[in-house]
């Protein structure tokens, strides 16, 4: 477990000093909101449209961060270092997923208020606690899956081309659940019925892919 903290701390420290991923992700999200404003020609959003804009933007912004996740390891032989160190290999997966989770939460603390400012007329703040819980559950799934797929993609020739096409179909169930829950929360007036059911689906998704990623990661780290 200490290895997980050490690697995650290293990643977060590097991010804090270089400010490479999170600012780019946040900028991407805000710009995408502006594009949606013009693309949909709407000033205010609610319900399903609001949920769709929010989740597509967050997922695409997350892909930017996931693509950068293993770049340092590849360029500076970090994989060899992990293999040589007397630690469990899955520490790397857990650490990367943890670092990514921090990135995503940082992204969302910027993107959600901006989204509310741009598009939401009323009721955002009363929806926020539940929306934050849904977002966190969806983030966990995106993080474990993202860390697993990024470690696959980084070893291929196609690399950052491959990651989105692998991740997007696999993320569909999470986006269905997150968007369906957010749709109710962002409706005017807010509905809360069924939100718990979708959160249960998200938790199931997180658990299944968390276990799969944990079980399979060792096989990606053999050379």
């Amino acid at each position, binding site marked *: 477990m200490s290895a997980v903290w050490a690697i995650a701390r290293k990643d977060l420290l590097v991010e804090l000093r270089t400010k490479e991923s999170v600012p780019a992700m946040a900028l991407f999200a805000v710009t995408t909101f502006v594009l949606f404003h013009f693309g949909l020609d709407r000033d205010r959003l609610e319900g399903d449209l609001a949920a769709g804009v929010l989740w597509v933007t967050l997922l695409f912004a997350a892909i930017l961060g996931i693509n950068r996740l293993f770049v340092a390891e590849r360029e500076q032989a970090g994989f060899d270092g992990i293999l040589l160190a007397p630690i469990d290999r899955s520490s790397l997966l857990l650490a990367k997923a943890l670092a990514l989770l921090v990135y995503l939460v940082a992204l969302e603390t910027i993107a959600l208020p901006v989204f509310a400012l741009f598009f939401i007329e009323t009721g955002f703040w009363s929806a926020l606690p539940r929306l934050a819980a849904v977002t966190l559950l969806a983030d966990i799934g995106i993080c474990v899956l993202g860390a697993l797929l990024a470690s*696959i993609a980084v*070893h291929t020739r196609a690399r950052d081309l491959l990651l989105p096409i692998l991740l997007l179909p*696999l993320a*569909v169930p999470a986006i*269905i659940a997150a968007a*369906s829950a957010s749709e109710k929360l962002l409706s005017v007036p807010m509905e809360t019925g069924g939100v718990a059911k979708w959160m249960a689906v998200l938790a199931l*998704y997180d658990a299944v892919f968390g276990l799969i990623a944990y079980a399979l990661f060792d096989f990606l780290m053999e050379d």
Partner: protein
Amino acid sequence: MRPLAALSTLLIGTALALVFFYAPNDADQGFVQKIFYIHVPLAITALVGFVAAGVMAIMHLRTRDDAWDARSYVAIHLGVIFGVGVLATGAIWARASWGKWWVWDEPTLVSFLIVFLLYATYYPLRYSIEDPERRARYSSVFAITAGAFVPINFLAVRMAESLVHPRVLNQTAGDMPGEMRLTFLVALAGIALLYVTLMKVELTSKHARGQIRRLRRLLEEDERPAAGAAGPTVASVPARPTL
């Protein structure tokens, strides 16, 4: 292999005969419903093939036997080919029943599209890894993850749609009249057997290609002393069959 091919031809021929001459027209949908006897068996076979590919990938990771990776690859490859058939027949059915080539309120078809899109990425993944050993390993990790994804995806899509729309088609083998069920089961057996036959054909051809490559390499090594400086070209021949 020849008996297998003969048997699948026979079964599919029988199934087609039953579809056109034995099974009654559907009361609601009439003649067009008969595409169901091709569409649904194709879909079931493809999905079972995808999940089986995941199991074969687990076997590869456990045994490190390249044969299991080849089986897993061929199972996914044929599943994708059958998947094209599923989407095409599904679109035809949708057009005939609802007047549109694509409908979003048929959760099974939508789920199948998502699964199909996921498995389509198996090819770019597989072909962008050069080292054969690593390619087999990474492809197996993908096949297992995707195999587990199939049921979760069906669950999520079904939940999302059933909130708004009732199921339009609720015909499973359970509540069909006898003639329809018999026809459906024969068609299912025929398509499944076709899948197995094609899998055998492709595996045999891959195996043969690998053997030929190995023999050719041996032959070149034998000729090398006589030919003199043929060294570098021999070294560039891959040691293992590439898939």
